[in-house]
């Protein structure tokens, strides 16, 4: 959809332009309904891309625990480092400090994860379900919304892990993403959520979409997902007990079960993404 005809989704920030910005070819976000397997796909995909030689920035904008585990780093217990990058002017809202741009945030305000990955986090919810530090949230949003300014990051892969539903893509939490990997379980609610995320991504956000059917136990369920979606899926990630086992042992599935079916499937996903990127280039 051209910028002229694109209509803002309801929660899109009023002062933010909608048209797609420049960015790296491998800047993507993983979305879907709660419980679909987003974190496992995003964490494992980030590790695989890193092992194939890409520099990888992982972005976790879910206030619930998620990507750190699937990447294989402990969840930080302290408030997000990002707060140190923000300031509150006497008049006006929180903002990134002058001279702190997206690249500085990546260098100084991210967590180190295995295979050289840097992990940028929104911050985790307190007992009321809110991320406690306003400044950190503002700094996070400004960072993701200014990502296109950091030309040196165009060489990197970005893998974002978004919380459940279409809310964050529609609210401008992932404007860096040129590709949405939409994860779908074989249920009607998961499929309808996937359709909605895809509609926003392909429409106003002008991004590409790749459907991943997850937790699939057989060919019947693949066909069910495709029938519910109304279009074919690009990849199937089978239901795999290795995921639950890894979760219980608090390890990333790629560390706990590197030869599991689920890891093989995400390797195939990385192949598809790399092939598409080459095609586009």
């Amino acid at each position, binding site marked *: 959809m051209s910028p002229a005809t694109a*209509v*803002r*989704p*309801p*929660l*899109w920030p*009023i002062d933010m332009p909608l048209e797609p910005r420049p960015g790296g070819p491998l800047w993507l976000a993983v979305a879907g*309904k*709660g*419980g679909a397997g987003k974190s496992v796909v995003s964490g494992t995909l980030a590790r695989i891309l890193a092992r194939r030689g890409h520099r990888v920035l992982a972005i976790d904008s879910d206030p619930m625990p998620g990507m750190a585990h699937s990447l294989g780093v402990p969840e930080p217990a302290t408030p997000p480092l990002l707060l140190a990058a923000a300031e509150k002017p006497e008049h006006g809202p929180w903002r990134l400090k002058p001279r702190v741009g997206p690249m500085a945030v990546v260098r100084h305000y991210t967590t180190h994860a295995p295979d050289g990955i840097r992990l940028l986090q929104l911050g985790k919810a307190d*007992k*009321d*379900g809110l991320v406690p530090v306003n400044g950190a949230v503002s700094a996070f949003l400004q960072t993701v919304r200014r990502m296109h300014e950091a030309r040196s990051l165009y060489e990197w892969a970005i893998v974002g892990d978004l919380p*459940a*539903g*279409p*809310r964050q893509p*529609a*609210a401008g939490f992932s404007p860096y993403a040129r590709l949405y990997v939409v994860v779908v379980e*074989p*249920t*009607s*609610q998961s*499929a*309808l*959520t996937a*359709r*909605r*995320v895809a*509609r*926003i991504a392909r429409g*106003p956000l002008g991004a590409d979409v790749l459907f991943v059917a997850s937790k699939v136990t057989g060919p019947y369920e693949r066909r*069910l997902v495709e029938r*519910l979606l109304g279009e074919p899926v690009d990849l199937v990630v089978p239901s795999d007990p290795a995921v639950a086992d890894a979760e219980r042992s608090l390890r990333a599935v790629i560390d706990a079960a590197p030869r599991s079916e689920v890891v093989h499937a995400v390797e195939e996903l990385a192949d598809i993404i790399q092939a598409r990127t080459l095609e586009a280039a």
Partner: protein
Amino acid sequence: MKIAVSGKGGAGKTTISGTIARSLARSGHAVTAVDADVNPMLGISLGMGMDATERLAGIRQELSEGHADHDHEHEYTIDGLIERYGEDAPDGVRVVVASRVDMPDHGCLCCGVSADRLLREIEGTGRTVLGDLEAGVGVLTRMEPGNLDVVLVVANPTPKSIEVARRAVEACVAREIRVLVVANRVAGEEDLDAIRDVLGAHDIVVVPEDPVIRRADAEGVAAIDLDDRSPGVRAIIAISDRLAAEAVPQAA
């Protein structure tokens, strides 16, 4: 009477809301079902099918139409909105969607109809209002005493689900709203004990794990249409009977 259904994402709020709405309507109640989630799914559980659910308008998004005529504000009543933008679901349930994030928003700032406001202002006399809330406790914390008669707090036997349920119960107690805990997907005594350990001081009703409900969720149909005698569906119908019995004295 005004009922809301709350709980963690994936706990089964929508299935329980849809089944209770249908069951109340079958026993003769006028039911208005309010989908208060910006990712609305209630139409599926009411038995409208995925495509009709996808065509439901979000009131917030629709209200912006006609805004070019900027001389006067939109004038509306809550019942007028339900009449105009709602749809009929099976058994005569009227369903409305407060706001949906996937639809273009033309940005009418003067008509701030939010899910919160719809739930606060909708009249519960002479009908049953059933609100299917967004995951978490946000909406509940923005209600005031008297806005809702009863909240069904849905808990699954998992630590995270029980924790979200505990916060929802806390929010209701602070607002003097009656709570009924629905222990959902209970497969045995151990599951029920996990929920009782934390929420045992409150009324608890049990909905057993039920393959019929799982199949309904997979296929995108109402569980009550698939098999209204399966254990899970019967347990939810029993909840609706109990709510109906409690509502009689209020209506009289």
